């Protein structure tokens, strides 16, 4: 279980809170995968910072994988989440499958992107939420600086899902913004199952820019029910997994 370390650290944190021994404000949110966390500054995704997520290939337009990735991260921040969008195609039950259940997230359907950026900033500044997600196509430098400052002040994590109407517009992702990290997730073929069917989704994940860390890319399995991504087993045909009979039982 690759997520085991993260589960243990989460349980430890909960014990600390219950026993009331430490006052700890978390600075980063680890993915629970050492290969990835090592390459991020302070070993995780920084709270109080802006992170950009885009989809690759057709995902730049539909933003499905980006939404799933953002939902997993937002769910793991543990508190209330605001999700701002203006396109009506978001399907909430799927976000719940990445851990972002109905009791954790409130949606804000805006008329245009100006309203999204305004609500995004207000929500970050407020400080009562643990993460705010905004789906935008354009993110001008000044707007991103405002979001970054608002996030820094309150310690709320800001996740901007970048998605464009046309493929050519996706070049905008190269323009500079004030974000801490910039991710691109592209759906790739899922691992082979011993039976017919579609396995857990897989992404080719690129870390295109990070402050105080190094760029990298790797293949990961999509978020599980608690929002954790995982590194796929190197044995692609999966004997390590099938030995305990789990996949057979499911398939």
């Amino acid at each position, binding site marked *: 279980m690759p997520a085991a370390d993260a589960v243990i650290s989460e349980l430890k944190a909960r014990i600390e*809170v219950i026993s*009331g021994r430490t*006052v700890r*404000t978390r600075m980063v949110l680890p993915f629970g995968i050492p290969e990835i966390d090592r390459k991020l500054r302070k070993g995780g995704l920084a709270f109080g910072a802006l992170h950009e997520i885009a989809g690759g*290939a*057709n*995902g730049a337009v*539909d*933003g*499905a*994988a980006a*939404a*799933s*990735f953002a*939902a997993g991260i937002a769910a793991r921040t543990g*508190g*209330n989440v*605001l999700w701002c969008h203006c396109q*009506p*195609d*978001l*399907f*909430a*039950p*799927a*976000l*719940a*499958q*990445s851990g972002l259940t*109905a*009791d954790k*997230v*409130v*949606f*804000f*359907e*805006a008329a245009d992107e100006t*309203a999204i950026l*305004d*609500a995004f900033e*207000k*929500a970050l500044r*407020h*400080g*009562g*939420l643990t993460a705010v997600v905004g789906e935008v196509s354009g993110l001008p430098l000044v707007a991103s600086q405002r979001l970054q400052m608002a996030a820094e002040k309150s310690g709320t994590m800001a996740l901007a899902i970048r998605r464009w109407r046309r493929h050519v517009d996706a070049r905008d992702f190269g323009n500079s913004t004030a974000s801490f990290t910039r991710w691109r*997730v*592209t*759906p*790739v*073929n*899922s691992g082979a199952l011993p039976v*017919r*069917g*579609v*396995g857990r*989704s*897989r*992404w080719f994940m690129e870390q295109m820019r990070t402050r105080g860390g190094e760029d990298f890319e790797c293949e990961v399995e999509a*978020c599980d029910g608690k929002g954790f991504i995982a590194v796929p087993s190197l044995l692609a045909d999966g004997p390590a997994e099938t030995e305990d009979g789990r996949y057979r039982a499911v398939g």
Partner: protein
Amino acid sequence: MGATGPSADVPLVLKGSDGRRRVITAADDLAVHIGARVGMPVAQAESLFADLVIMDSDPAADALALEKLAIWALRHYSPMVAADPPAGIVLDILGAAHLYGGETGLVDDVVRRLSEMQITAYAALADTWGAAHALARFGGQAKRIVIPGGAGEALVHLPVDALRLPEDMLPDMRLLGLDTIGELAAKPRAPLARSFGQKLFRRVDQALGRLAEPIEPVQSPELISIQRIFAEPIGAPETIAKYTRRLVGQICDRLEEAGLGVRRLDLHFTRVDNRIETIFVATAKPVREPKRLTKLLCDKIETVDPGWGIDKMVMTAAFVEHLSMQQVIASYSEPARPDVEELWDALANRYGTDSLYRAVSVATDIPERAVKRMPPTSDDVGSTRNAAFRRPQRMIRPPESIMALAVLPDHPPRAFTWRGQRYAVARADGPERVRGEWWVSDNEKGKVRDYFVLEVENGERFWVFRGGDGQHEETGSLNWFMHGKFD
């Protein structure tokens, strides 16, 4: 009249005096149907209709009841409400309609709630008080909404009675052959103004929006209200914000004494040119914190046009609810996070309550109906009926037709074409059969959809379905549709 009145199946009229004799002042539908009418002498009515029930009218009580109704509307709908005697109320819904899902939603809500109170209501919404007044009374429709700028056109065929003119003016106008507002508006003004006075065309201009007609909001001693009059008119936004803060402080003290919290707080600014500008904020739960209310109000100050200056500010707690003292939880372990309800209120006041929602799952198999929107304060966790089934992050609404090749009855497609691009299917899951819900719609009776999860060669994952079970024609068309995109 409630339980003390006569039963509803006998004709009823009210009598009063017009100065010289006793006349009928009001008649119900049944009485009008048999021939009684307003203005008919009581003696005549008594002799014509044997079973007519005649009761004394009570204009003072009517006026009081209308005032009460206006205060009810003030609490529920808009900060600018006034009684429009003898039998109407007028609401200025600028900035209030979005709380009810737009103008249609607000009008529907008003009529529905009034009918629940056993009041038959006619509602009209137009650019001006005059136009709405005329259309509600003479438009002949229970609900009428006139598009902005359409007041002139809507009024053309209405009788001149609709213009709120003095009673004695109407017979003379008839004599001149002026029956409709359109005819009147088309006439040269000077000769008519000489015989009827300026009042005539003032009413026409008010109805058509050429002259402003302010609504003086209804006041009530039971509403908590604070006002401040300025010796020197104010106008700068910072000054307005400063006095807003002071008024909020005072009103919160009053609310605390009464053990109340505010759900809607109105702030009226009377300008030196006697126009009234109004802003208001609504909250999901009763609130009494000065800081929070000030912030909500100050977000709206930019919408106030101070004109030549503001000389009076009136703050009214329009809608209040009981709010007891609350213990603030002091914790050493974790710094308290600000209350998120404050944020929901701020966003709802800026963008409308409809724009904020929790997406709650519904116990249904039809994906289009799988989510219902609940307010952010709701703690409805929804159904877990389909929680274990894989669902797409993006749903394509409505489903788009695709060309697909598949073996009947239950094989997934081998390949399909969507939006002009051809995809070869590498892996597939399904079918997941969804049956139409005949109790929702007759069209769905006996219909079936078979859903498949498809993974194509480049790794993208799609959600497609086929209408019909592949064996029986009556279950669906056998056409394929694209319905979603997975991560």
